């Protein structure tokens, strides 16, 4: 077999996993990353063990892979780089990788798109006061805080009442986000349990539409939350949040569905479970490569059971194809590697 080259766009967990699998088979992989370091979003996630028991969030699965990829002889990593131009003749792609002002030309027999996602911008949902009210955070903020500074010192004082609002930027027809982000229920419940563990007195309310309890691990976690008397599930999405400066709290207005009346409740901390949006680079990639996207902006595979795209030789890996958890992303990324190997 002639020596083959593959280009992987995006060095998040999906791109890294696919790159490793392919490189292990003796193929040279060019891994292009926009950021100055590899790891993508997973790098920002904290370990979500509760009482030192792993809740299988998968955030730790990145580190081994980063260690392996850095020393892999078949993988060449291009950091802080973009793809400036691409052309195809016969079955070969000719790609120009731009790094500051320098351009590296690379030949590739196949291209894997692993551009991941962009977290939903919570400020665009102004009624929840993100960015205005100091006690309103996103799930990602909490993750980053837990990862960098540990579970404490989240606020000046110990929170007594915490609320999570689910589906912020998911399942929302007004924003043309008519899809479920699949991960928010999982991380929100894990974070809720971590907050409960850190502050034993705290009461947590979770505002939700439907709990997306898929996967057997998650169901156990959900049962555990339901058994906790200090975690309450409220089937309603609040209409607005308003700052109460005197008590340093945030007031949430929602409709109580069982009694159909409006209720106001005050919280010391409000967490918005923001969803997954197609990566903001998707449009650029779409115009460069000519891959089909679905109505929401995720890339569309040729059929439901494949990672191939409408462009021959271009494959999809991970969340750029649709929302997935870390372990689902890894599985998808490995499947992509199998499809690519078959194609080569």
């Amino acid at each position, binding site marked *: 077999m002639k020596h083959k080259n593959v280009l992987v766009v995006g060095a998040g967990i999906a791109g890294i996993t696919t790159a490793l*699998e392919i490189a*292990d088979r003796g193929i040279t992989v060019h891994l292009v990353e926009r950021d100055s370091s590899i790891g993508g979003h997973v790098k920002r996630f904290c370990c979500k063990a509760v009482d030192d028991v*792993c809740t*299988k*969030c*998968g955030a*730790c*699965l990145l580190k*081994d892979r980063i260690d392996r990829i850095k020393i892999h002889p078949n993988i060449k990593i291009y950091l802080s780089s973009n793809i400036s131009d691409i052309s195809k003749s016969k079955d070969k792609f000719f790609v120009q990788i731009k790094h500051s002002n320098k351009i590296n030309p690379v030949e590739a027999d196949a291209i894997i798109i692993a551009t991941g996602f962009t977290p939903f911008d919570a400020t665009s949902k102004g009624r929840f006061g993100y960015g205005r009210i100091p006690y309103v955070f996103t799930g990602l903020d909490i993750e980053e805080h837990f990862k960098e500074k540990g579970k404490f010192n989240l606020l000046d004082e110990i929170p007594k009442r915490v609320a999570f609002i689910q589906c912020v930027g998911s*399942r929302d027809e007004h924003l043309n986000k*008519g*899809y*479920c982000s*699949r991960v928010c*229920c999982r991380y929100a419940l894990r974070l809720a349990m971590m907050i409960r563990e850190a502050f034993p007195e705290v009461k947590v309310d979770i505002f939700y*539409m*439907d*709990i*997306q*309890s*898929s*996967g*057997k*691990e998650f*169901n*156990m976690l*959900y*049962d555990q939350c339901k058994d906790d008397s200090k975690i309450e599930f409220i*089937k309603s999405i609040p209409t607005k949040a308003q700052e109460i400066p005197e008590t340093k709290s945030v007031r949430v207005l929602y409709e109580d*569905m069982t009694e159909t009346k409006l209720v106001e409740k005050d919280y010391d901390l409000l967490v918005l479970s923001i969803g997954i949006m197609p990566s903001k680079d998707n449009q650029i990639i779409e115009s460069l490569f000519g891959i089909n996207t679905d109505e929401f902006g995720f890339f569309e595979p040729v*059929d*439901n*059971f494949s990672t191939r795209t409408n462009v021959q030789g271009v494959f999809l890996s991970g969340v750029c*194809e*649709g*929302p997935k958890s870390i*372990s*689902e992303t*890894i*599985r*998808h990324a*490995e*499947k992509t*590697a*199998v499809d690519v190997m078959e194609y080569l």
Partner: protein
Amino acid sequence: MSILILGGGIAGINSAVYLGEQGHKVTLIEKEKELGGKLNNLFSVYGLDVSPKDFVSQQISKLKKLSNITVFTSAELVETKGHVGTFNSKLKTQNSKLVEIKHGAIIIATGIDVSTPKMSCNSQEIINHTRLEKGIAGSKIRRLSKVVFLCDLDKEDSQIIALSTLKNALLLREKLRCEVSVLSRNIKVAGRKFEKLYTTAREKGVVFSAVEGVDIGGLQLICDWLIIGESILPSHGTEDLFLILGVERDKQGFFQHNNVHFMPNLSNRKGIFFAGACHIDAGLNDILDDSLTAAYAAHNLLAKNTIEIDEKTAKVDEEKCALCLTCIRSCPHKAIDIEFSREAGKKAARIIEEACFGCGICASLCPASAIQLREYEDEKILKLIG
């Protein structure tokens, strides 16, 4: 190298086809008389353009074309000895004939069983999703005018059942124009295009209502069919496999241990992989991906014909070994056995290096301190801590 695949459902078949195409010798065993598993009984699967039965037949015909795949139906695994690379298994095939095979790896794709929650309701017929799928294919269904789906009965429905509810609710509404209601705690739409399925069903007139804790006894529903979701159980025989192969299970009895580092397909024993519904709760799409990644992992392991040994495996000082068996009992990876040691001139524990994960449990438990981890010997550590 050869591979043994347990289970001839779609996951097992899919793994077998991939491995067969890569040139491995594959033995696939299925306890039922025919291949295909649960998909054989389904009328349709969301996202699949052809009927599930045709889809399985296509895969089976691919399988049959590959001469390096041997299939045993009505067969089961009786015994497995050895470890990664040199497994040695006995199969009981048709007419209780024993077949012995040598193989390098095992893929467990035993799938799931379902059980219908027991309930009685005097006014209408209660059916489960399995019967519903059969019913849709049959003719009796034409007379239906009102159907109710009851979800999340005693616990949350699994992904498979939740998806089946959405798909069949829409199907009954569109094809038969009958009234369809879905009563559930949570509508599960976590998956590619599932939300679309849900909104389409609503647009077409399926009525979704949120209920909290259904009390069946006091329930008065006027409908022709009351459809309830089955609960998903580990496949019959999981217990036996656990005893034969020593692979760990989670709290609910499904395969694969809680260690995330084993995700997606690894088990606590090297050379044994999981594929499909026996370890994940997912729709066909994910099952296909998963079985392929399991096959790929097995292929990666065996393609080189050599197994790389980790540098940090345990080692035994045979002189010190008192044959107390503590290590054998405590090893979670079945990587220790007893062998005659020529150097020590006696029997002693032996680490099977290719199966060892280097976890260090045996080293920490050995009462005679006869086991040490390479790279982490006592002397080295003592020097480090002064």
